[in-house]
């Protein structure tokens, strides 16, 4: 069938639907109606045009059979370029929704030893904590002992409670042994909401692709295979078995009376229980299980409730002041909303943190204690405290800058990263280079080059090797942005001359090779690296690149990916993100 059309007309008779058909105006289109942008007199007709982007008059379609309808090759169009699979940046774990009731594994005869003797207590707040008093009974002057430990504690635990909380704490202080009645809505009553996360994605994949026998050989540390204590917990964390670690925190918290189903029930808090919560929530975040973290954070409110302060427990912590909440937990709590698509809330919380840090620094500089009270600090203590709070402020600013970057508010992000330099001057090179990379992401190559030149000026000859590699890396990124993959590749190789084991340079050099049309070489390089040095190279980003290239190479990429799976299986813990293997 001859699909000939009259020339100089848009070919809307073709079977292909135009997604953006309305705006490809040709020269003959009439002018569009004006929009009110600049005030001008009524009797003037402003002129507007939509652009004709150099589109030639559409000629008659090619005589190739692809223009014929029905039986046409349209039906056989292969829509998939490379069978591209959408890989999202953060894996969407369905386990987040899994709110299974807790197995009563406690019945399994496990001997759960709580971390410290005095924290095994469940129960109401009225009961005095007799055990803790025993700790101090050995010394003659409990107060003096407490004082010598308290300097370090004081500066770390200092916090500025809100007005309401302050009032509650004062009233508690004036009634020695029985805290004033506080509405339960202002108390922290946390409890586990998720249980038994110990699903090993790697083992699952092995079952599906390598068979049961191979899967049986997989050995990872589980919550059962370590000491049921903080020591065991640390083992699980350092071996990257974070799911098992989360489960262990669950068990330890259950011993504190804050286990599954205990949310909403009155309880008491100690530094140890709060540290356990912190580790649990931090691990959720590292595992990208953000909703889990949000749900379990919820009973903690904004971390300012009176029962989270030492003053609330005068019998347990006599004379101690400040917040029991670790600063890192506050930071985690503030950062979390940005990973749940609520970056503005994260910014608000981070600003609040910043305000308090600045207030505390201000107090210190005025000669007061951190919380503003008229306690004289020695010069040494003051300096130590200033140092601590400055570094905390720097950390908060990092969080803010990262959040702004996530929100794509590049201007503010760049400003914030810039202002971190005064708090962390030893990170100047990295911060300026990072800002340069942000400009490359925007596309402003000139500005990026200016920042990279700044870095180069600040790096003197004979400085640390990392400075030279940094300068070279920056240069390579500029070449990349100029489409000069050859020079970029050469520059990454120069980094490798100085630092042969640099994983970033190796990975990036291989990526450049691909853009130069040298797939086999690139593959060979990356594969070799993964085999020789799995510790460095069995990493999500490298494996994404490797599996992508496997798929480009041939249709039989599955075997090679399985080989990767085997390599992963014998090294990586249960927290490994298996999406990068593309075996789904």
């Amino acid at each position: 069938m001859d699909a000939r059309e009259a020339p100089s007309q848009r070919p809307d008779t073709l079977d292909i639907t135009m997604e953006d058909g309305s705006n490809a105006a040709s020269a003959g289109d009439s002018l569009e109606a004006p929009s009110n942008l600049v005030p001008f007199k009524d009797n003037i007709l402003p002129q507007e045009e939509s652009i004709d982007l150099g589109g030639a008059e559409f000629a008659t379609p090619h005589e190739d059979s692809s223009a014929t309808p029905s039986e046409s090759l349209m039906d056989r169009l292969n829509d998939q370029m490379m069978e591209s699979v959408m890989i999202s940046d953060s894996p969407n774990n369905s386990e987040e929704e899994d709110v299974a009731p807790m197995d009563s594994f406690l019945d399994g005869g496990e001997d759960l030893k709580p971390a410290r003797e005095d924290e095994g207590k469940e129960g109401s707040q009225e009961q005095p904590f007799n055990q803790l008093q025993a700790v101090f009974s050995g010394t003659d002057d409990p107060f003096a002992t407490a004082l010598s430990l308290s300097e370090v504690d004081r500066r770390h635990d200092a916090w500025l409670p809100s007005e309401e909380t302050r009032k509650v704490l004062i009233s508690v202080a004036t009634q020695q042994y029985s805290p004033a009645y506080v509405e339960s809505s202002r108390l922290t009553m946390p409890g586990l909401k998720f249980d038994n996360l110990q699903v090993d994605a790697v083992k699952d994949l092995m079952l599906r692709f390598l068979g049961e026998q191979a899967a049986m050989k997989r050995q990872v540390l589980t919550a059962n295979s370590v000491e049921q204590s903080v020591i065991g917990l640390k083992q699980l964390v350092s071996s990257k078995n974070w799911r098992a670690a989360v489960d262990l925190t669950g068990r330890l918290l259950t011993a504190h009376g804050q286990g599954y189903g205990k949310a909403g029930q009155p309880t008491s808090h100690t530094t140890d229980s709060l540290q356990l919560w912190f580790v649990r929530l931090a691990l959720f975040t590292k595992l990208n299980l953000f909703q889990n973290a949000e749900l379990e954070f919820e009973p903690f409110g904004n971390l300012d409730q009176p029962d989270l302060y030492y003053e609330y427990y005068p019998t347990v912590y006599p004379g101690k002041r400040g917040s029991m909440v670790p600063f890192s937990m506050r930071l985690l709590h503030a950062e979390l909303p940005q990973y749940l698509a609520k970056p503005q809330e994260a910014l608000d919380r981070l600003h609040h943190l910043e305000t308090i840090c600045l207030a505390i620094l201000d107090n210190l500089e005025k000669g007061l204690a951190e919380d503003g009270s008229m306690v004289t600090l020695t010069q040494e203590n003051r300096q130590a405290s200033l140092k601590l709070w400055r570094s905390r402020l720097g950390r908060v600013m990092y969080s803010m800058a990262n959040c702004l970057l996530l929100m794509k508010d590049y201007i503010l992000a760049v400003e914030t990263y810039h202002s971190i330099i005064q708090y962390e001057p030893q990170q100047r090179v990295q911060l300026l280079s990072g800002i340069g990379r942000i400009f490359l992401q925007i596309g402003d190559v000139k500005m990026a080059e200016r920042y990279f030149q700044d870095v180069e000026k600040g790096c003197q000859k004979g400085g640390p090797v990392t400075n030279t590699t940094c300068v070279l890396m920056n240069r390579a990124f500029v070449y990349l942005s100029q489409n000069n993959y050859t020079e970029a590749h050469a520059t990454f190789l120069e980094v490798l001359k100085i630092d042969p084991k640099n994983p970033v340079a190796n990975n990036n050099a291989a990526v450049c090779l691909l853009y130069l049309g040298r797939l086999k070489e690139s593959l060979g390089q990356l594969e070799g690296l993964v085999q020789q040095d799995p510790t460095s190279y069995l990493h999500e980003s490298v494996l994404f690149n490797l599996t992508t290239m496997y798929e480009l190479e041939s249709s039989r990429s599955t075997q090679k990916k399985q080989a990767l799976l085997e390599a992963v299986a014998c090294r990586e813990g249960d927290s490994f993100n298996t999406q990068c293997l593309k075996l789904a």
Partner: protein
Amino acid sequence: MDVNQAKQEHLLALKVMRLTKPTLFTNLPVTCEERDLPGDLFGQLMKQDPSTIKGAESLMLGEMLTLPQNFGNIFLGETFSSYISVHNDSTQIVKDILVKADLQTSSQRLNLSASNSAVAELKPECCIDDVIHHEVKEIGTHILVCAVSYTTQFGEKLYFRKFFKFQVLKPLDVKTKFYNAESDLSSVTDEVFLEAQIQNITTSPMFMEKVSLEPTIMYNVTELNTVASGDDGESTFGKMSYLQPMDTRQYLYCLKPKAEYAEKAGVIKGVTMIGKLDIVWRTNLGERGRLQTSQLQRMAPGYGDIRLSLEMIPDTVNLEEPFDIVCKITNCSERTMDLVVEMCNTRSIHWCGISGRQLGKLSPGASLLLPLTIFSSVQGLQSISGLRLTDTFLKRTYEYDDIAQNGPTVELCTSYLTLFAS
């Protein structure tokens, strides 16, 4: 040619991957202090992670490059780059392999392959690679057609094709407005101001590297988008060097007709070509795009048949003191006119002289100067009104009020008549 692939097992596999620029891997920093339960564990984990920045592990934007994971969007003016790989999946040597890549749009078919010669032989597990680039010049559906022909070791000639369809979208929305400046009192040239509004209709931020106006031979262009400060002018957009999705920016250009065209400009009617907008932008890691508009057209301001402009007028005058002005009357029509001038007083402006006098004949394109005297009775900024010109041939009267304004032209504030009575 039989392209029924389903029935035939081919020895070669064709794979295509779009090569957008790689992205930088980002990390999620989770930290704690030494006194916390994990101690330095979290710090160690971050230091051991190869994708973190050493010495600044809390910095989210790393240095590891990640290959594109999906096709993404492609916009008019960008360059479509793609890796084409033909892999010998079989165990036999394959001969005479010819790989052709064509890009088919609704209007044309382009050959994109770098080489058009056949590869003599391809051993098992080897591949033929090619990276093609094409600057996309049309919107809408594009089809990448990859054809592979080869000969097996038994002499059998085989052939297959694969089609990859993608849409090219429009990246920018451009609207233009023209402003005609009333002639400068000291010269006869007319300046035209062009305001170009550019909107980013993609889903990612765009850095506008260059937006310039290439004028036609009739005009000289001054771009008005930098603030002079030192060597490099600073952009009028300040720090905001990029356009977020859906954001709009306005660029301003001043066009002056060149001297040799100047006289004509005053009486040019109808449509004139002003020039083209040339836009260059960049996105992630320097991915470049470039577009030109077609020739922008301007409707010459219709002065009607007669154009009245002011040649001379003082800036400030004293209250109730007569002062002189000089008007220039140009015959913009095709016929000779016989003009009579009448002056009408307004509340604030009082004319001195004889109203209703003949000015004489005026041929097409010619102009005459008319000196007049007026005084003002009211303080403040006044505009001159009340001039009437009548063409006795056609018995048509042209009224001139607020003389700075004339018919369907737009005036800039600077050329409003300023007249302060004090």
